[in-house]
């Protein structure tokens, strides 16, 4: 066994030193009625070559966005990852380390997280960011719990324009602590209806949640919602599922958000069929001690040299146990590192240009599709890199089937989440979609008219 150094002979020698006849004696404490009397019923072992062949065969049964042109987004975005990202992130010293409990031999991870926390603050316009949450959806759920810890209120205003899976996760979490979620519909602009938000607000309102760009790709007027929320003494929680938008869209912090969470997959992380992704979490300094998750802080060693450590851990489960601000322990450190590397490569001008590319290509696609007979752009509000298209003749499923025939993976069929939008597709366009691809999409949608 190439992964288990000790041979039979090594083990024998060690058992002699331990002073037992066989390893059986070391398991003698397991009552025999609790023992497995047979071998495990699993596939027999494969050699490395055999495994490689088998896995290639499995993988080849999946489409990948290199073979197809894909217009799927909806919380998972197809962006180009510079080669340097994986070269650095998969340095063994990074990916074979544990959570940096021993700072003297973990300064690499710790400084990188400190840099990540700074980048998240810069992007979101907030004062403090943590070391990462599991993903955007669980980060949002944790934001509700945090808001509840802060003001003790029970009601959450939750627009329907928030990612449906994020809403489900919030529901799953919040219910247990008696939080109640209030749905709020959207207007024809595809944005959350401010009147309805105001109507839902009361002195029982813990927080108002907004996603922007929202699930329909539309940009919400955060400042107005912030004003309304704060007016009712509620907190504003902003979720961002497509973090590339930070490059061109005013930051939630500047618009009055109290907590900003979201999905950072767009930076440094592959689509990975849904995970692992990167939950980011930022808030105001005033709320630090109610914040979930790990935090890295700068400090000094005995010689006065700058160094970094995990800090404010009195918030955490390993100290506070059942009084902790969260149960999170292992998070997604390596995904955060990947985002840090990618953002460092993009930099100040690159991030802006990337966002602009997405904005422009999407505008181009939106205009082109709006001209197609049999289709219309469903909502009128400004969008970033996603928009909703209504198919007047064929069902979205029919449209997508036609596209697949042309090796195009079309948009998400919204009926699966929104019965009233069962004739709609959510189309995402990124820098990975060339103009030719967009034109081919339109051609294929048009059904060769």
């Amino acid at each position, binding site marked *: 066994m190439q*992964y288990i150094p*000790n041979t039979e002979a090594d083990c024998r020698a060690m*058992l002699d030193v*331990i002073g037992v006849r066989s390893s059986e004696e070391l398991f003698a*404490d397991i009552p025999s009625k*609790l023992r*497995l009397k047979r071998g495990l019923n699993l596939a027999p072992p*494969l050699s*490395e070559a055999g495994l490689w062949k088998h896995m290639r065969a499995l993988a080849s049964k*999946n489409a990948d966005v*290199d073979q197809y042109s894909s217009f799927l987004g*909806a*919380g*998972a975005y*197809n962006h180009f990852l510079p080669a340097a990202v994986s070269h*650095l992130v*998969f340095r*063994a*010293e990074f*990916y*074979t*380390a544990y959570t940096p*409990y*021993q*700072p003297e*031999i*973990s300064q690499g991870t710790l400084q990188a997280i*400190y*840099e990540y926390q700074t980048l998240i*603050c*810069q992007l979101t316009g907030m004062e403090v960011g943590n070391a990462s949450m*599991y993903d955007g959806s669980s980060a949002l759920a944790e934001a509700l719990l945090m808001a509840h810890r802060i003001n003790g209120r029970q009601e959450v205003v939750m627009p329907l324009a928030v990612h449906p899976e994020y809403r*489900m996760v919030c529901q*799953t979490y919040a219910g*247990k602590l008696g939080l109640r979620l209030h749905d709020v519909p959207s207007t024809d602009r595809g944005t959350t209806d401010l009147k309805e938000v105001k109507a839902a607000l009361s002195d029982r309102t813990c927080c108002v949640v907004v996603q922007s760009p929202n699930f329909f790709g539309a940009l919400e007027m955060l400042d107005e919602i912030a004003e309304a929320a704060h007016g009712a003494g509620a907190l504003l929680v902003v979720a961002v599922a497509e973090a590339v938008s930070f490059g061109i*869209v*005013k930051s939630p912090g*500047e618009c009055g958000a109290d907590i900003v969470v979201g999905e950072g997959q767009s930076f440094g992380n592959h689509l*990975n069929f*849904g995970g692992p992704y990167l939950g980011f979490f930022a808030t105001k300094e005033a709320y630090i001690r109610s914040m979930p998750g790990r935090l890295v802080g700068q*400090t000094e*060693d005995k010689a006065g*040299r700058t*160094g970094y450590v995990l*800090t404010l851990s009195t918030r955490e*489960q390993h100290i506070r*146990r059942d*009084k902790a601000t*969260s*149960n999170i*322990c*292992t998070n*997604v*450190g390596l995904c955060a590192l990947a985002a840090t590397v990618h953002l460092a*490569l993009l*930099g100040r001008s690159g*991030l802006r240009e990337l966002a602009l590319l997405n904005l*422009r290509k999407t*505008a181009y696609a939106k205009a082109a599709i709006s001209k197609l007979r049999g289709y219309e752009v469903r909502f009128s509000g400004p969008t970033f890199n996603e928009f909703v298209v209504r198919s007047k003749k064929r069902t979205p499923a029919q449209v997508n089937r036609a596209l697949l025939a042309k090796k195009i993976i079309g948009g998400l069929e919204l009926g699966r989440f929104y019965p009233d939008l069962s004739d709609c597709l959510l189309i995402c366009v990124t820098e990975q979609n060339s*103009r030719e691809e967009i034109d081919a999409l339109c051609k294929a949608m048009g059904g060769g008219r």
Partner: protein
Amino acid sequence: MKDETIGIQGLAFHEPLLFEQGSQGRRGCSLPENDVPEVKPERLLPKKLLRHDIPGFPELSEVEVVRHFTRLSQWNYGVDLGFYPLGSCTMKYSPKINEEVWKLPGFSRAHPYQPESLAQGALELMFELEQYLAEVSGMDRVSLQPAAGAHGELLGMMLIRAYLESKGSPRKRVLVPDSAHGTNPASAAICGYQCVQIKSGPRGYVEPQAVAEAMDEDVAAIMVTNPNTLGLFEEQIAEIAKIVHSKGGQVYCDGANLNAIIGISRPGDTGIDVLHFNLHKTFSVPHGGGGPGAGPVGLKAHLAPFMPVPVVEKKGKRFVLNYNLPSSVGKVRAFYGHFAALVRAYAYIRSLGPSGLRRVAEVSVINANYLMSQLKSHYHLPYDKFCKHECVFSDARQIPYDVHTLDIAKRLMDYGFHPPTIYFPLIVRGALMIEPTETESRETLDQFIAAMKRIAEEAERDPELVRSAPHKTKVSRLDEVKAARQPNLRWKGKAPGQGGSSAG
């Protein structure tokens, strides 16, 4: 290697923050050509939503970014560099082939919403992995959704809560042994339960007696860790389960320590209703310096109706995602879980097979007992019996010289080793929790033993040498009090050659 210690010093590189380097206009990547009209952003977005700049954001070329993170990486200790006996964390070696398989475009470049017909390979892998984990643990179904162990605990408690609700009442309390990991009570609390601590018995086990006394119709469940955090197998787990079940409660097992019993004993056969796996422990997913891991949850049939959606099912030859579970607890995260971690675990199980997995348990237990038998002579062993995956010592014999567990841990770094887990479990004062795993050779263990013995001697001969350790690392002990008293959690300086400050 006899007299030579592994830990030495070499050239390293000072490296400032990303934000303190570079100069205006630099960039580390090239972007695809813009092949559509150059419309002004003002024409596409309302002015008030437009962002014009992010002052303080990095401006570096590719070579600068590469050097930055290459240098940083060298300040880290990883399993690929040496022995990492972090108790309870099962820091085993991760096979390199697994890092190749998950990167295959068909896995890493697949979109979660792409048509099922174009994701059959991914669904097949998840379907198979569920079967494998069920067989290994003796459970009926497995949810692959949780992102980590604690996430699995939370889902597990949610399943129990939903089940009990369906039986009338969610109940109020959860029993948690004092030896449990902090995530256990925290997870129960987030799930709306009060925690009742169960004191471990003198021999380090959870005593049926104590459970019986605490158990009543208001208790939803008990959370046991087996093998427990002392590295002991809970001999009476079956009796404990019987007691809890008899009062209508459920038994949760923290499976973080499965490595010690895989192929030898299955929690599902010991009365467990729910358990979580840590694929980043038992199943070789690299820990990544703080994740991502994966914490699938195994469950018995009576809890299956409450599983989070979607579940992967096989219809004839096709694999499908089933969202239609009316009593489901819902979702604990978007999409399907940490798929890339699942791929690694699947590959690991396929390479080891039944015999290989059993060997993992055997050798990890032999290694742990070998360490224990050799270190007894120099360190206090509070619970002196054969252990499973790990052994727990304390600093009791060094305290007279005013040398504490933390000092021993730091001094180990100078010898080239990562320290064990320290001060956990809480029931052992000054605990040194040592888990070697099966991927360490006898020679490595002998080197570690030699270092530990030398440190014990140093503690008597030259305690200050130990108290002032580490001496060979890039930085010495860091001021954690300062870090907590005056939190500095982000860079706020002024970027080189940039106008603005870093205020986003």
